């Protein structure tokens, strides 16, 4: 099993050379061509214990700027916790989370709030405010964090809702929406502030294949338009191999392998092999 640290560096190097060739096959989205290739986020030896169980056990991981990084692994492996550590929703017991070299856990409350302006996050449940309409949900960050004039704000929100195909649902409340619509509203809300980094916590879990593909296409299109740095937790194997450039495999609170789509798919690590192939037999015995 490859060590998270070494594998990570190797993966990034590989990515730097491979990234230019990368194209999202279903969407034909091209690679990031901006000037900076250094990691925007770095987790160094992050440990977290919850209810007496070590849920993150020395995670070291780099998130390359301007690329889509997929975090894959079994349910309960610590992937969502990893995402929460990246945005400072949880503090590690040990280790550092560096955003452009600054440890976000050492920031003041105001500093952390400012750092979070660089992020957008799409939660697994959507986490829409259920007392607000679709329009108000998407407009919420703009109203709270900017002084955008009302006319401009309405135009921007309607434009984003049009892009996600929800221009006719602006007056609906979250409980009147389907699962796919909720994720699309959540995606609209995550990008409305033009963040640099977007975190996706299982954006397609529980959706039918058509809606799932439409959400993934939407994510790819958003990436194509803005080249945000994206981190996505997903169980959509093997689809996800065609859409993401960089992969991290998490198992038992550790990053066991990082690399490109090709590297992960051809990994010789028994756990990664079992995960990729979806085999019942392997190092993980569930029954």
């Amino acid at each position, binding site marked *: 099993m490859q060590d998270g640290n070494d594998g990570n560096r190797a993966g990034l190097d590989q990515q730097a050379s491979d990234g230019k060739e990368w194209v999202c096959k279903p969407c034909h989205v091209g690679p990031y061509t901006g000037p900076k290739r250094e990691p925007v986020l770095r987790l160094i030896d992050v440990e977290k214990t919850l209810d007496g169980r070590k849920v993150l056990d020395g995670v070291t991981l780099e998130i390359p700027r301007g690329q889509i990084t997929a975090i894959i692994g079994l349910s309960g492996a610590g992937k969502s916790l990893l995402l929460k550590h990246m945005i400072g929703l949880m503090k590690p017991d040990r280790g550092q989370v560096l955003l452009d070299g600054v440890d976000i856990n050492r920031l003041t409350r105001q500093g952390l709030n400012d*750092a979070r302006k660089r992020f957008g996050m799409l939660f697994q*449940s959507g*986490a829409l405010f259920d007392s607000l309409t679709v329009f108000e949900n998407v407009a919420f960050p703009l109203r709270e964090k900017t002084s955008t004039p009302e006319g401009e704000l309405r135009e921007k929100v309607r434009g984003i809702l049009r892009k996600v195909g929800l221009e006719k649902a602006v007056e609906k409340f979250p409980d009147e929406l389907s699962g796919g619509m909720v994720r699309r509203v959540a995606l609209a809300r995550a990008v409305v502030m033009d963040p640099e980094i977007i975190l996706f916590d299982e954006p397609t879990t529980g959706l039918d294949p058509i809606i799932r593909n439409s959400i993934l296409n939407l994510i790819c299109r958003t990436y194509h338009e803005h080249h945000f740095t994206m981190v996505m937790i997903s169980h959509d194997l093997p689809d996800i191999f065609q859409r993401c450039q960089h992969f991290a495999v998490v198992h038992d609170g550790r990053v066991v392998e990082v690399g490109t789509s090709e590297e992960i798919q051809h990994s010789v690590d028994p756990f990664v092999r079992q995960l990729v192939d979806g085999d019942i037999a392997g190092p993980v015995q569930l029954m």
Partner: protein
Amino acid sequence: MVLSIADALGSRAIRATRSLGKMGMFLGASLARAAVPPYRVRNIVKQVHFVGVKSVFVIVLTAAFTGMVLALQGFYTLRKFGSEGLLGSAVALSLIRELGPVLSALMVTGRAGSALTAEIGIMRIGEQIDSLETMGIDPMQFLVAPRILGFLLSVPLLTAIFDVIGIYGGYLVGVKLLGVNAGVFLGQMEASVVLGDVTNGIWKSLAFALLIAWVCTFKGYFARHGAEGVSRATTSAVVVSSVLVLVCDYFITSVLL
């Protein structure tokens, strides 16, 4: 055996102390957020409407019947001593000093406190609070502080309404039903109620408002384990708030008397 009992008691004591400390920190943080801008006036007004305006009906109903039963019981008790004339004082003082603040607080706990815990609990379970944080919005300032201020503004006003309606209910039963002289009822009441009684009632209602808002927001904010967890948090918030209101009432009364 003895050691294991001591161990269990010690663990409980540590857990209780930790929980109290957490509650104290939560209160301190929410009051600090309430004191500094942005004040989110719209949110505060919304809370005053929810806690205050929407509780008026239940407060009026409770107050009217409390005043009426006080007058009924008081009349027959005082008649034994030939002191029916003191009915106005008895009703007014009981309501202004004790029953007004306490019953208003208990009614608000049942109507608004439980809803507050459930609302914040659902927001916690549905990751809406996390979502606020990811947007760089402080949930303590956005959610908790306006609710605490809403309670602090509403509960004393509801208590005042409770007192007035309760006295009027007592007047109706005492004067119109049982035949106590109206002038005696009102005159005795005016003579016995002093400003200190009213201010004591206001202090109590302010203390109860803070207590209810504190316990209910805390229970909701740290709700866990899905719908059942929210249900447990709501029940616990109502029970703890109600008991604490009664306990605090005794201590505040003993200090203010």
